[in-house]
């Protein structure tokens, strides 16, 4: 079964500084990877996804992520953060149908709380 590890539970960053949120996954077959953002007391919103093709994926709100198969990583980056980026960020994985994926949805990491300091 696949799993996701988000190495940092909290990441404090100064406003306008760059940030990287780390995500590693474990799977013996090809996977689809996702990053979601959750603002307080709200649902999860999809930031970006990697299904296939280019390993550098661009998402909403200026975020991007790079898929690295050899390191089984999918780290999220933003070159300059804003106060409004303060939120919980979740990395998630699922198996494509051709890899034997079922309908049991995404497997999530425990989340990283991004704290933007003025």
């Amino acid at each position, binding site marked *: 079964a696949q799993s996701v590890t988000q190495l940092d539970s909290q990441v404090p960053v100064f406003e306008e500084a760059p940030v990287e949120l780390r995500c590693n996954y474990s799977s013996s077959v090809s996977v689809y990877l996702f990053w979601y953002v959750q603002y307080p007391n709200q649902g999860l919103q999809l930031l970006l996804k990697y299904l296939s093709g280019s390993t550098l994926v661009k998402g909403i709100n200026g975020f991007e992520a790079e898929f690295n198969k050899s390191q089984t990583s999918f780290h999220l980056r933003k070159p300059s953060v804003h106060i409004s980026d303060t939120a919980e960020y979740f990395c998630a994985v699922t198996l494509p149908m051709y890899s034997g994926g079922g309908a049991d*949805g995404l497997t*999530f990491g425990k989340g990283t709380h991004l704290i933007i300091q003025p």
Partner: protein
Amino acid sequence: SQTIHQWPATLVQPVGSPLSLECTVEGTSNPNLYWYRQAAGRGLQLLFYSVGIGQISSEVPQNLSASRPQDRQFILSSKKLLLSDSGFYLCAWSEGWDRGRNTEAFFGQGTRLTVV
């Protein structure tokens, strides 16, 4: 476009009382539907998923049950709530198998349940 509605947004219930949370999806047919629970600092735990009317799979044995009486309606229930049922409950949907896809999930706004 597709939308997902989940209600209520907040709920305070006494221990031992029943629970019913409802979720509906619009703009698609035969979606996969999911209930997740989120506890502080513990990420998202998949509770139930459904691939069709009346088809429910349970991931975690517990005090809760789910039902899918209509194609785009998913209900989370309990006969008697426990203190440990407190948490943030999220409904989600994804494209169904008949579309040959298995990709991202789309989430509702969540229900904050406090059992007192």
